[in-house]
């Protein structure tokens, strides 16, 4: 009993003396908190779970990538993988597909968002909602749909053979990188449109009216007024799409094309089809490095843009 009394007396004596030292608070951290548990302790449980479920496995992948099947630690798996034709092809294919898709998405998304926002038409709201719904569907549905339209026994080829009597239709691009490109542009364009529509809704339409009353035509207004405002949203949306394209798997898997191999596809085939885990891990590490690097860039860009 006397112990607790002493303790509280000490606490009382110490409390005011301790206050002057706590000066350097930013405005955000100014509220006084009880001393019982520091706030970082509350962050520990979720971080621990994440570490166990995600960070530790990720570390194992890196470890596995420098551990060849024969044992020991070496960079041989890297040398082997970098030397292989398949990997180099996959790397080039992945990068150009991602860049191409991103450019396509940016152009298409900008044009479509421009019309929805600034040339309003009845049903425009419904289109915007449709875009939102579109985002909640998995990517491979697009490839599935394209199979019906342009597949070897699909609509387009069927129409061609019916009309011309030829044994085979002319559309075979679906199993080439062009098919993947088309599918990726289709699927990822809404990811550019959404931030753009949000940015456009912030734009004061008075600016457009003033610009047009000063004699600026639509093209000049888009270049001088709208584009500068949309630039942050375009940059943020574009870099997000670039990362997602680099990581895309479902679209490529569904085309069933043997000659389109991207990095995620290579990880899958090395690990599941060939059971070559060290090689799979090497490809995975390369893929992580590219994606995480770009994603970091995206975060910086979007923070600058205030998104």
């Amino acid at each position, binding site marked *: 009993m006397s112990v607790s009394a002493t303790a509280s007396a000490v606490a009382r004596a110490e409390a005011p003396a301790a206050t002057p030292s706590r000066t350097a608070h930013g405005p955000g951290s100014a509220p006084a908190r009880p001393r019982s548990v520091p706030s970082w302790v*509350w962050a520990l449980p979720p971080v621990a779970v*994440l570490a166990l479920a995600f960070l530790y496995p*990720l570390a194992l992948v890196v470890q596995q990538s420098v551990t060849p099947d024969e044992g020991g630690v070496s960079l041989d798996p890297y040398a082997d993988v970098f030397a292989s034709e398949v990997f180099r092809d996959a790397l080039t294919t992945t990068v150009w597909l991602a860049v191409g898709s991103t450019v396509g998405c940016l152009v298409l998304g900008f044009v479509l968002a421009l019309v929805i926002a*600034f*040339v309003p038409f009845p049903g425009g709201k419904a289109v915007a909602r449709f875009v939102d719904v579109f985002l909640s*569907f998995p990517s491979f549905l697009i490839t599935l*749909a394209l199979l019906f339209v342009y597949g070897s026994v699909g609509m387009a080829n069927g129409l061609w053979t019916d009309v011309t009597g030829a044994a085979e239709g002319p559309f075979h691009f679906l199993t080439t990188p062009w098919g993947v490109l088309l599918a990726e542009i289709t699927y990822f364009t809404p990811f550019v449109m959404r931030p753009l529509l949000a940015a456009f809704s912030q734009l004061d339409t008075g600016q457009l009216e003033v610009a047009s009353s000063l004699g600026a035509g639509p093209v000049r207004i888009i270049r001088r007024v709208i584009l500068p405002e949309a630039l942050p949203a375009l940059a943020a949306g574009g870099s997000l799409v670039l990362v997602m394209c680099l990581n895309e798997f479902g679209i490529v898997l569904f085309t069933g094309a043997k000659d389109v191999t991207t990095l995620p596809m290579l990880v899958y085939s090395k690990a599941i089809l060939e059971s070559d885990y060290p090689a799979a891990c090497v490809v995975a590490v390369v893929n992580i490095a590219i994606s995480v690097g770009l994603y970091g860039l995206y975060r910086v860009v979007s923070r600058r843009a205030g998104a």
Partner: protein
Amino acid sequence: MLVHSRAGKWATWAVFLLLFVPLFAVPLLVILAASLATNWSGAFPSGPTVERYSAATSGDSLQALTTSLVTAVTASVLALTLGGWAALAAAALRRRGKRLLDALFILPVAVPSVVVGLAVLVAYSKPPVLLNGTRWIVILAHTVLVTAFAYQSVSAAVRRLDPMYEQAAAGLGASPARVLWRVRLPLLLPSLTSAAGLCFALSMGELSATMMLYPPDWTPLPVQIFAATDRGSLFTGAALAVVLMTTTLLVLAAVSRIRTRASYR
């Protein structure tokens, strides 16, 4: 606003429709039509049938649907708890701690899903924790993947929350725990439900990591769709895809109803 002449407007809209309809509306319609067709190798599908749907909602397919639902619901609940907790804890931290937590919990978005699958496979295929071959490895991977999105939406909502409410509550004598339970969480409820919807939709359509991990007795719907198309049964695949989309939309609609009821302003 931008185009003033009538002709100009119609021309713009025509271009819009020419781009929008074939790219976005047609694919979904094609899948819907194909799911009802017996054959389609011309301009139009032939022979309407609902046969595929009776197949798609029974046996293996029904099993796949329930597998997907159980996985998505479990992963969403886990992700919401984990991501929500982390987002709330991050909000109480100083700048550097907040940045660190942001980086950690958003990392799964940047890492390719296939690699997440591979990592989980590598880590949990050996003792002490042997999850490979069980449904839990799929659920674990889905949870990791959607936690990042739960974290992002909850922390955005926490940032928008007016600190006046917490301060008013503390001023009235509420302890931090009471402020959390009686004020912050109820005010965050709309955002939490929409985050749940997002997680659910993502998990329902997840294919990349699942392909790396699924055991034979735990085949989610996307894997089933792939299996169908891979063996050439495109029409069955289409019917399954329609089932997947419909289920996702129904759940999202239900969630948005809850959200409307939970929002007070």
